[in-house]
């Protein structure tokens, strides 16, 4: 299990290498190539076991590291000058790519900060008041048909923007909480309507949560629901049955 946690946090071979390095940043001056190489290699093994995609890029970096390590361990061995030069070139390339990667990661953090800052500035989009606004003599559409097509493709391709799980987690009302609330209400009231049950909510998603909770209660046989026609209020009545022990909802959140 720990593997998944580990592997989920890096993206690509450079990223992996960086993480292995920064993990020991406490003592960056004592960074040992030997340790680094063995860790990188063991990671590749783990990835293979987990059947993750090991690209040639991963292997290329691994082989460079191994070569460097070999050279490191055998400083006096006779070496082929050509091979040596090639290795040095490869090393420099790796080094400069690592540095570029670190640099852009740093910039990305700055951009994120700026984006967050900028969203806090809200512009006024109401325009001129209709009552006093003069009709502009000639409206300009700053795109042609292909431009408009591109915009449509962009906007229509991603309804409601990107799905963002962090947000969902924070903002979705809990069905479990709604369940608890409904159960205590139905204990108290014996008979009520869905509209009354959700009278205190302010957002549509909360109503949805309550609706799901109500379905769950009906499934457990704790309430009876009825409706005169499809647009009328849903009537909810406590049914005779006692609550079974240890009810678990499929909406329960697993930590």
């Amino acid at each position, binding site marked *: 299990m720990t593997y998944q946690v580990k592997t989920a946090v890096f*993206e690509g071979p450079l990223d992996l290498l960086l993480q292995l390095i920064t993990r020991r940043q406490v003592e960056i001056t004592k960074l040992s190539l030997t340790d680094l190489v063995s860790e990188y290699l063991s990671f590749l093994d783990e990835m293979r076991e987990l059947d993750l995609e090991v690209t040639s890029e991963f292997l290329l970096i691994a082989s460079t590291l191994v070569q460097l390590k070999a050279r490191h361990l055998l400083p006096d061995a006779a070496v082929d000058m050509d091979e040596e030069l090639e290795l040095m070139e490869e090393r420099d390339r790796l080094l400069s790519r690592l540095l570029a990667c670190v640099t852009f990661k740093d910039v990305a953090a700055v951009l994120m900060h700026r984006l967050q800052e900028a969203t806090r500035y809200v512009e006024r*989009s109401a325009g001129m*008041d209709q009552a006093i606004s*003069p009709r*502009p003599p000639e409206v300009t559409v700053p795109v*042609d048909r292909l431009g408009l097509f591109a915009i449509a493709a962009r906007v*229509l*391709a991603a309804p*409601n923007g990107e799905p963002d799980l*962090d947000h969902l987690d924070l903002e979705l009302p809990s069905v479990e909480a709604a369940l608890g609330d409904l159960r205590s209400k139905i204990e108290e009231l014996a008979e009520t309507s869905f509209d009354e049950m959700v009278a205190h909510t302010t957002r549509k998603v909360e109503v949805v949560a309550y609706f799901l909770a109500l379905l769950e209660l009906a499934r457990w046989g704790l309430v009876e629901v009825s409706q005169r026609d499809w647009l009328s209020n849903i009537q909810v009545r406590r049914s005779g049955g006692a609550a079974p022990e240890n009810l678990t909802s499929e909406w329960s959140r697993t930590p």
Partner: protein
Amino acid sequence: MNNRSILEAILFVAEQPVPVEELAEVLEIPVETVQAELEGLAADLAERESGITLRQIAGGWRCYSHPDAFPYLERYASTATASRLSNAALEVLAVVAYRQPVSRNQIAEIRGVDSDSAIRTLERRGLIEEVGRLPLPGTPTIYGTTNLFLEKLGLQSMGDLPPLADHVPPATVVETLEETFRADA
């Protein structure tokens, strides 16, 4: 940030008069305090001869441009920037063009943000128009593009717009999902 500034910020972005009770709720302060602050703010703006005025109107408060600035606003309205459509308006226009007839709510749902003022702008500019009502509670208006739209985009008919269907592979949605799961460590 003090209450007066917060009220000023809210009324700056508001697209219609905001009832004092609503403001009191947002700031979690008594209605009387809000009323007093707003009167103070309105007096302030008037005193320093601001280009913005604050008025109590139609059951709420709203900011307006100062009436004396009207001749200049008229001239501004005919400049390049003012007559060019904003990004938001262009997005709404694209949605209406490809999804017509479409309602306010459908547009907002697609864009993920409230789009009322952009819709008003496009309507006022004659690029979209009401084409009917939906048989739903509140009978929401549905919009379509106009002949002026065709003219402005140099189109002979709507058939001249590149078809969208072949260009929106559902794969992109899958990929976006995938990326969200993968990259957000």
